[in-house]
């Protein structure tokens, strides 16, 4: 079935002669023509500028000096011997400045006395509203006449005239200075010493670094434009033609239809990419495109395989996104309208690799597309950080799988056919819709948190960040969700009393969980050592603590998160997901999401571990309160011993502490299990056929 759908999809595409012509053949033919034309124009332009007669005038109180210097300058050979001989012609000086402004003259050379120059600069500074000439400026102002060259930077001939005259005048000044030195008996040597810098990077490494900057954005550009040829027609085109309804009434499964279309998008996208890259290669071979000098890229077979591995999920993600767009758009026109934002959505993260200091060994590995972009750059310079390459692969891969599944669901969306949105849960809204929206809310909160920590972190300070993130974002976000979806606050926040034994389990479990959490963090650090700068950021908490009383630290770091993070994560998030997931995946998902909110890669494993334990506590006790206490005790136990100088920050727990803590944790959860008051899972929404209250009759 898949093969049939795919075959016909490709057959129909190849029969669309105009599309093939415009999308594939035209660029192949037009590119060389355009490149040749632009090179011809560039050469002609350069020749015109070089061979032009540069008209200039000399003005100012020191015009004689300026004329003398220019005369000498024009007598000497052009310092740049590669240019055509320059032809300078002097013109009448009156109104020279305005003649330069209107373009009749290329240059006006003004000779100024030191006093005049000082006055002019002062006026200029006053006009710029910079408070006049300051002392520093006074110090550096010359005590000798000044030659000012007036030119127009927007006129290439004027600019060339200025550059060529200036180069000669500088040379004249150097010769004059040397002659003065000699006249006073000072030795003038050509060389007082040579400064040389030694680049230890191999040519292959340099080439790789350069190629790494452009490869991912270039491939994405080609994939997006190539894949679009099929994608625009795949769903939105079928909608517009009326063939989609015909196709959807066949026995083909929705996933088969989507997979076939996706394969077609990938095939054409990859084909267009390869054709265009080969095309570029041909231009390079024939010298139409100049590569940087000494560009050399050496790739081992392993590196090549890693590159292909990294591009694979990217290709799937691009094709899914294009199909998704095609499904969402009601027509070709709408598709074209949405294409540019989608294009930016891919290209901008891919350009992260060009940012200075961007290192794969950071949270960037977890950002889809961006992680691959940075990973590709590192592979091209010969570095294989396997763990982080795997993370980059996984982050983009998981996103690609999610996008592919979303695309499959697009075809089941009735809006495609009916023109209106029918969504049973959407229709009922409220609590029935919440399980399907809760992840979007937390996604939005994650983005807000990222933005705040990146751009406002320093301004807000530790106190501000903690209060804003935890109370502002999590608590207000939770309340908004409750209000929007008309949730019962008692159920959403799990505000129920647990079995009394749960308190005992919490008090022994929380410190034990902290110790085992430290074990998790240390185990992760063995796989991915913490970089120096991350360690420094960990230490900032301690520095802030020095300026804050202990009670405030405990309040901000233990009590506030204990209450408000629990209400958000083990409250509304757990409540929302409980209808969709079974208990074990539910606890793991809540834990992982909690970990991801800690942004820093090295903090994710221990916090995800803590989040999973806390979710389990809520699921076993049916109550948020023990989890709140557990969370607060955990954070306080991590903070207080250091603040009171009972232990140092780099204190290492003895090895025996880990198995003991694990045993205590087992005891705590055993107590919770035997005294459990299970979390009440909300009823699933009634299915369509049962919505009328009648049992569906069996034929």
């Amino acid at each position, binding site marked *: *079935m898949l093969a*049939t*759908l795919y075959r*016909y999809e490709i*057959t*129909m595409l190849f*029969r*669309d002669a105009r599309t093939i012509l415009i999308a594939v053949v035209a660029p192949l033919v037009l590119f060389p023509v355009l490149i040749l034309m632009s090179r011809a124009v560039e050469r002609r332009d350069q020749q015109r500028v070089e061979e032009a007669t540069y008209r200039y005038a000399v003005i100012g109180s020191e015009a004689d000096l300026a004329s003398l210097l220019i005369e000498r300058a024009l007598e000497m050979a052009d310092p740049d011997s590669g240019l055509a001989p320059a032809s300078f012609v002097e013109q009448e000086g009156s109104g020279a400045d305005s003649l330069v402004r209107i373009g009749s003259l290329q240059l006006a050379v003004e000779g100024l006395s030191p006093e005049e120059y000082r006055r002019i600069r002062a006026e200029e500074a006053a006009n710029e509203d910079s408070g006049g000439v300051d002392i520093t400026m006074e110090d550096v102002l010359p005590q000798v006449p000044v030659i000012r060259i007036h030119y127009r930077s927007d006129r290439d001939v004027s600019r060339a005239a200025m550059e060529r005259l200036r180069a000669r005048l500088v040379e004249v000044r150097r010769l004059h200075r040397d002659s003065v030195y000699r006249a006073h008996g000072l030795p003038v040597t050509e060389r007082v010493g040579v400064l040389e810098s030694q680049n230890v990077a191999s040519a292959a490494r340099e080439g790789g670094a350069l190629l790494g900057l452009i490869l991912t954005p270039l491939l994405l550009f080609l994939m997006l434009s190539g894949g679009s040829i099929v994608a625009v027609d795949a769903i939105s085109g079928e909608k517009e*033609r*009326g*063939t989609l*309804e*015909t*196709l*959807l*009434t*066949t*026995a*083909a*499964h929705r996933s088969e239809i989507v997979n076939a279309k996706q394969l077609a998008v990938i095939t054409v996208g990859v084909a267009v990419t390869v054709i265009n890259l080969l095309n570029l290669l041909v231009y390079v071979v024939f010298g139409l495109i100049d590569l940087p000098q000494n560009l050399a890229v050496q790739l081992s077979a392993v590196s090549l395989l890693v590159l292909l591995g990294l591009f694979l999920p990217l290709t799937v993600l691009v094709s899914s996104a294009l199909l998704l767009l095609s499904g969402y758009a009601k027509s070709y026109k709408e598709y074209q309208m949405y294409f540019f934002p989608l294009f930016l959505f891919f290209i901008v993260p891919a350009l992260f690799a060009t940012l200075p200091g961007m290192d794969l060994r950071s949270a960037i590995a977890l950002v889809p597309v961006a992680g691959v972009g940075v990973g590709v750059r590192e592979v091209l310079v010969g570095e294989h950080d396997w763990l982080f390459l795997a993370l980059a692969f996984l982050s983009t891969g998981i996103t690609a799988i999610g996008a592919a599944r979303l695309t499959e669901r697009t075809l089941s969306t*009735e809006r495609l*056919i*009916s023109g*209106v*949105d*029918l*969504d*049973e849960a*959407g*229709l009922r809204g409220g609590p029935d819709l919440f399980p399907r929206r809760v992840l979007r809310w937390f996604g939005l909160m994650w983005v807000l948190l990222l933005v705040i920590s990146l751009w406002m972190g320093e301004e807000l300070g530790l106190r501000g960040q903690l209060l804003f993130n935890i109370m502002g974002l999590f608590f207000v976000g939770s309340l908004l969700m409750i209000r929007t979806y008309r949730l019962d606050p008692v159920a959403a926040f799990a505000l129920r009393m647990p079995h009394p034994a749960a308190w005992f389990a919490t008090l022994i479990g929380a410190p034990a969980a902290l110790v085992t959490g430290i074990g998790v963090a240390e185990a992760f650090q063995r796989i991915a050592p913490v970089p120096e700068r991350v360690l420094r950021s960990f230490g900032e908490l301690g520095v802030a603590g020095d300026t804050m009383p202990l009670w405030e630290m405990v309040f901000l770091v233990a009590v506030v998160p204990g209450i408000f993070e629990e209400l958000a994560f083990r409250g509304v998030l757990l409540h929302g997901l409980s209808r969709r997931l079974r208990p074990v995946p539910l606890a793991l998902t809540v834990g992982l999401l909690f970990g991801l909110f800690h942004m820093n890669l090295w903090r994710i494993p221990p916090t995800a571990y803590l989040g999973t334990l806390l979710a389990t506590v809520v699921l076993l006790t049916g109550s948020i309160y023990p989890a709140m206490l557990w969370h607060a005790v955990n954070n306080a136990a991590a903070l207080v011993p250091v603040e009171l100088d009972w232990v140092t920050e780099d204190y290492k727990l003895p090895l025996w502490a880990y198995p003991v803590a694990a045993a205590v944790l087992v005891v705590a959860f055993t107590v919770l299990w035997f005294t459990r008051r299970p979390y009440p899972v909300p009823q699933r929404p009634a*299915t*369509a*056929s*049962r*919505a*009328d209250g*009648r049992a*569906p*009759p*069996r*034929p």
Partner: protein
Amino acid sequence: MWVEGLTKTFYDESRGEVHAVDGVSFQCHPGEVLGLLGANGAGKTTTMRMLSTILRPSAGTAHLMGHDVVAEPEEVRANLGFYSASTALYPRLTARETLEFFARVNRYPPERVAARVEELVHRFSITEFQNARVEKLSSGMKQKVSIARTVVHDPPVLIFDEPTVGLDVINALEMQEVVRALRDEGKTIIFSTHIMSEAEKLCDTIAIINAGHILASGSLEDHRRATGKHYLEDIFVYYVRDGGTSSLGRPDAGGVASGADGPIGVLPAPES
């Protein structure tokens, strides 16, 4: 085909909840044409789309050859041929390729596809233009290919949703002949129309649908007896405009409309 309490509620931003189809029930059997007669916007197309699994019912259920439209959509579609004015053809495939493609995607045995296509090419007089691309065909030719496409996998159930809309008289008559022939072959046919003469000529059972409800259902003779009116147009106006009722009325509010006898909730064994 067995339909019970089929309901479709849309949410439209400007109109709010819209009950496009509201508790429609009927049965249709092999060798029978059930006509859904209604004005534009009565709920015919939405009903058809639910039966063809494109839309999911908000409530109620429908079974086709024993398969549930919600639980087994692929099986339902494999047993179904769906034709409507909005089911267009791929312009860049030839007529023959179109038939081959739809036979394959409807899971027709691959070894029999060529023979089946050949048979339909002759039956629907497609021979002359079988290798021409659909985009080059006239609307009459396209109609023939479209009907052949609908039956290419030999489905036992056929749905024709206003098939004669936009056709000239000759092509509309040809379409009616095709439907009649298919009924004689024992196909179960649901035929929606707002053209009275078509319903009179073709349908064994006529269900009059308005505002998402079936107002009355029965043979033309049943309708004449129940309303005392002779012409279907008058009968239609009696129910839809004048709000008249009869012994055939409002089956979807309680009973099951059917042209044939049969207990509620029990499908007769399909005739081989």
